[in-house]
């Protein structure tokens, strides 16, 4: 009797659910074991710089402090603005009067990466914090460290975060790295679905996920694989560019015009796209890959025409939008004096 009533109840629930869905739409299933491999784990930390609240707060303060730059006019947040997905919304960054050659990448989930910058020339977040480009070069950073070390408010913060350690470039870099490891996106609709909430994804988003991960369809997971949606690898995706990319550091032919696979988490918030900011919308990105790139002279074998249908393209974009976390307001720090 109980079984029959359960059956009737589940049948009624299924009927109600089907009625609530658009015609032809299938309900989103529970994630399989293979799906759950996309779940994000805790951010790894080097044992010599385990994050603490004091370290994260110090790093955040430094991240937003323009006194760290050579002219005192820009901070890390100038190009990694929290309200713009920790990127800057520009095609390529503008520093002073200089237009940079590459787009500002988001710092979201940087703690999961193994190499840093578009060309991978930085091997740790600590190293990445120092001299990311010529406007915040290593010599400038050293001068900035001396300025910072004379600010009494910072002296107290450093004493709390790194007791016994001098206020110098390395300590500043460690604090900045600790802060960046705290900028994590792990509560998107996709994450909630992976945790078992089948209502977290729309049927359209779920279909997009299947297109994304199917090597015979979108083939996106060939590079955007792993819980942070990057293989930490370098690929020439067929963009027409004079930028040598990874080849400047690894003299291997396939690295000419190859750039690091960016995470797709918070991708909706970080337009424009690609290393040169040449795609304005996610739909443009999908259309680009559907064509198999533009300059195929040194393109990765994984980039080829996809022939996706209109629905598959729409589903793919819908899935990418499911990688956005619930928005939280970032409170800017009061800069110490």
């Amino acid at each position: 009797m109980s079984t029959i009533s359960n059956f009737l109840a589940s049948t009624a629930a299924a009927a109600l659910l089907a009625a609530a869905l658009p015609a032809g739409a299938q309900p989103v299933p529970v994630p399989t074991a293979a799906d759950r491999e996309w779940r994000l784990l805790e951010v790894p930390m080097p044992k010599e710089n385990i994050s603490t609240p004091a370290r994260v707060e110090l790093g955040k303060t430094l991240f937003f402090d323009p006194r760290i730059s050579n002219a005192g006019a820009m901070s890390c947040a100038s190009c990694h603005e929290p309200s713009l997905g920790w990127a800057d919304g520009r095609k390529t960054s503008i520093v002073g009067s200089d237009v940079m050659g590459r787009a500002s990448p988001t710092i979201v989930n940087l703690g999961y990466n193994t190499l840093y910058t578009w060309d991978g020339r930085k091997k740790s977040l600590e190293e990445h914090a120092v001299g990311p480009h010529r406007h915040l070069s290593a010599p400038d950073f050293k001068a900035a460290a001396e300025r910072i070390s004379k600010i009494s408010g910072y002296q107290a913060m450093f004493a709390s975060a790194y007791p016994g350690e001098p206020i110098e470039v390395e300590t500043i870099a460690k604090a900045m790295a600790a802060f960046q490891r705290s900028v994590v996106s792990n509560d998107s609709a996709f994450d909630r679905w992976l945790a078992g909430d089948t209502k977290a994804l729309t049927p359209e988003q779920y279909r997009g996920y299947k297109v994304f991960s199917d090597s015979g369809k979108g083939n996106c997971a060939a590079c955007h694989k792993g819980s942070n949606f990057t293989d930490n690898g370098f690929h020439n995706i067929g963009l027409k560019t004079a930028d040598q990319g990874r080849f400047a550091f690894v003299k291997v032919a396939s690295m000419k015009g190859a750039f690091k696979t960016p995470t797709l988490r918070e991708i909706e918030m970080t337009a424009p796209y690609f290393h040169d900011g040449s795609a304005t919308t996610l739909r443009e990105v999908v259309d680009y890959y559907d064509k198999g790139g533009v300059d195929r002279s040194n393109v990765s074998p994984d980039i080829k025409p996809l022939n996706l249908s209109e629905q598959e393209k729409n589903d793919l974009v819908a899935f990418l939008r499911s990688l956005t976390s619930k928005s939280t307001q970032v409170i800017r720090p009061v800069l110490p004096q």
Partner: protein
Amino acid sequence: MMKNLQITAILAILLTAAQAQAAEHVVSQKGRAFSVKQLSVKQGDSVKFVNEDPFAHNVFSLSETKSFDLGSHGTGTSKSVVMDKAGTVEVECAVHPDMKMVVEVKK
């Protein structure tokens, strides 16, 4: 005519002997990793890299012992290199920098 046949026969024997001595070692690329981290081979042996992943890999080395770039190769394909000099050869995949292995080439 007879002399030419003799030379051909000698060359064939030498070639067969050389082939018999040179071994082929197979290393697969699967799950963004080489199937072995260390490989010991004899000078003259070849190493064949088979891509068992559903995406492209590369094989290269900038080692002093042996510098080579086998290019990018897609799923199901393979590339080979002859280790013709004794020493240590650090092999990497340029596409996936976390993929590394070492080949020790012995005399």
